[in-house]
């Protein structure tokens, strides 16, 4: 990424805050999403239709897929030491995920079975559309201490350093596994995680989970850029699902990446998840000028400082040195680019009457050492936004490649002996 400060309309833009969101470049649409029906790339088909997203593919769905409206993200601890049992669980999970993403019930369904026994499916998604449900699995660094996997831990799957200002809650941090469930209907996303957790009892246990609403970024150029809970537009120019070139460059782990022991990750990605608490009440008391200065954008249109339109190329030097957009922009970070799928969250109030709310930040990248970590380092030390936010949860996961077909399963490339 080269420097394009100034007026050259390079289509490079920035969005993002609270850690790193950056997205440059062209905004295409549609994404690698499997649309149920043919449609314009600019029309995320299936949103209205509530259609099904194809589960199989070279990459897992839920990364370049057009961002859905809702999220239920869960991190799990592995409880078994039996590798075969863990593999069985991954196969059972894959089978359940395959059915749920197609809008079907788990196992033999939610009713009609033995009256004395609990049904296989919990039933709350009955009658609902598939709602573009995607389920995406990831493996945390701690998983590689188990099952003789130490040699398979990719060099890129580093433990995140402590960033200045982090106030991490252990009960919202880490995990051997994660599953990201995105859907247009919150009940569909919650149903998916609930049923996977249920299948997993005894083998894995939920360590923490997070519900999200109101996507804060988009992998499609939506007509209206979503706003974060500070009221600012965010995620305007994320990497789009159709930008195969940029996905290959910044998101997917390539065949040449890493050493021989990383081969299982080819086609995968790395996910950084951060629970970022927003100090909503103090932000709301901040003067408009301060708010706009902090972001480096105006609040109404979302245009960068000095520019009339949201999608205008920002002139970074016009912004305050500590402006979020300026600090997070790829041009300030040697072109660092990550794909973001963050969601707003509100978990009620915190007992002091303050909204327990913020951004659940999700960033996919080819290598966190060249993605989230340097970006966040920069932001954590200088970003004016830090006065109003705090990172309270954190995790990093290796996202394996996609499930190829009906015989394949989540994690096969890592755990299959012949792989």
């Amino acid at each position: 990424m080269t420097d394009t400060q100034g007026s050259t309309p390079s289509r490079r833009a920035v969005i993002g805050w609270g850690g790193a969101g950056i997205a440059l470049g062209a905004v295409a649409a549609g994404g690698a999403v499997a649309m149920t029906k043919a449609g314009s790339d600019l029309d995320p088909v299936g949103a209205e239709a509530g259609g099904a997203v194809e589960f199989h593919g070279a990459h897992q769905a839920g990364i370049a897929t057009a961002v859905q409206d809702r999220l239920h993200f869960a991190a799990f601890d592995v409880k078994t030491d039996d590798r075969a049992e863990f593999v069985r669980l991954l196969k059972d999970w894959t089978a359940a995920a395959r059915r749920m993403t197609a809008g079907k019930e788990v196992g033999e369904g939610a009713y009609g079975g033995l009256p004395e026994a609990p049904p296989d499916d919990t039933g709350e998604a009955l009658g609902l559309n598939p709602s573009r449900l995607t389920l995406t699995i990831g493996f945390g660094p701690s998983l590689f201490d188990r099952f003789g996997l130490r040699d398979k831990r990719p060099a890129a799957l580093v433990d995140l350093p402590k960033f200045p200002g982090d106030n991490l809650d252990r009960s919202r941090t880490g995990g051997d596994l994660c599953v990201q469930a995105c859907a247009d209907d919150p009940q569909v996303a919650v149903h998916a995680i609930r049923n996977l957790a249920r299948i997993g009892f005894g083998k894995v246990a939920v360590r923490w989970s997070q519900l999200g609403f109101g996507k804060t970024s988009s992998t499609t150029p939506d007509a209206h850029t979503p706003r974060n809970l500070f009221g600012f537009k965010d995620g305007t120019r994320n990497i789009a699902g159709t930008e195969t070139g940029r996905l290959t460059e910044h998101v997917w782990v390539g065949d040449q990446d890493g050493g021989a022991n990383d081969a299982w990750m080819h086609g995968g990605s790395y996910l950084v998840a951060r629970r970022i608490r927003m100090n909503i009440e103090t932000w709301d008391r901040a003067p408009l000028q301060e708010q706009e200065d902090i972001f480096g954008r105006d609040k109404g249109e979302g245009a960068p400082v000095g520019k009339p339109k949201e999608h205008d190329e920002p002139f970074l030097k016009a912004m305050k040195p500590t402006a979020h957009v300026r600090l997070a922009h790829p041009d300030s970070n040697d072109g660092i680019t990550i794909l973001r799928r963050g969601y707003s969250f509100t978990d009620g109030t915190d007992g002091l009457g303050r909204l327990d709310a913020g951004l659940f930040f999700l960033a996919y990248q080819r290598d966190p050492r060249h993605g989230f970590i340097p970006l966040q380092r920069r932001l954590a030390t200088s970003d004016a936004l830090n006065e109003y936010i705090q990172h309270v949860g954190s995790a990093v996961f290796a996202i394996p490649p996609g499930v190829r077909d009906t015989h394949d399963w989540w994690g096969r490339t890592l755990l299959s002996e012949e792989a």
Partner: protein
Amino acid sequence: MRAVRFSVITAAAAVALTAVTACTQKSGTQDTDRVVDVTAKDDSCEVSKKEFPAGHVELAIENKGSKVTEVYLLFPDDRIVAERENIGPGIKQKVTAEVKAGDYLIACKPGMKGKGIRQEVKATGGAVAKRDPKLDTAVADYRQYAQDQADETLPRVEAFVNAIKAGDVPAAKKAYAISRLGWERTEPVAESFGDIDPKVDVREDGLEDGQKWTGWHRLEKSLWKDGRIGAEEKTLADQLLTDLKDWQQRVGTAEITPTSMANGAKELLDEVARGKVTGEEDRYAHTDLVDFKGNVEGAQKAYELLRPVASKNDPALAKELDKQFAALETLLDKYRKDKTSYEFVSYDKVGKDDRKELSDAVNALAEPLSKLAAAVVK
């Protein structure tokens, strides 16, 4: 206990092979085919017929022995269809019951002790559903277990009550947790009698408006929070003993089926998940781990009795349950010095991470345990 639990009864109804209503009305049957003369002696229990048509049946009992006796009409699994207690020497009594077709037992208990002297009888006509005799054995053994637990509980409760009445706070505290163990092991059976549980095991937050708080947890609060025993506590202690004697008397009449046993085992784990893991159960005494242990032991007993059938029908499930029961037991052992004692770490000393570990282990067991009923009726 938070609420009356019906699952034991409803599960029984759902799979009842022989649904029966016991009646004790005076009007005898007109149909002599359905009158069974029972002659009870000190060493025998003679019946006038071994087969009778299903329907309204009358047992015409005469005690020709020298001991007070009682006579039962029982299902093969020992569930009571009808009974009459305290029949003195020379006394005649009638017991009637509505009986569906199937196998039954008539038992006389001279001296009102033991399993009694038994005769197999059969109600004929209509369709007779048969089930694996191993399941009848399991139910009968579990019924005995529930009775034994109640029988063993009473003296422990008496010790607790006596300490309270003596005003001995330390002794009462010491006797508290262990006095609950038998109850905790068989809670779903006890709860199937909707009226006993709210008297003996309700917590303060479980009270309805106007309901007087009685039972173990009321005394727990006095002992640990208030640290004193007054006249009211002594009265409540007596009441606890009375209510638990009622339980002891009625345990044998509980509706128990193989599936209600299986789901009862699961419910015991539900008890752990809801009240013990959270520390709500014994919030003053912090003896939750003792109750926890009791719940798990009771669930394990039900499972062990059903295991011969379950392992035949679903070997993988049995294997998983064996593993998870063992894992939970091992985990619980971390919280007591001596594996034979019921002195567990005070639950307020168990940290958040350890509670999470316990909760995970409970989920790991309860989820497969919820599939036991299906494996039993397969």
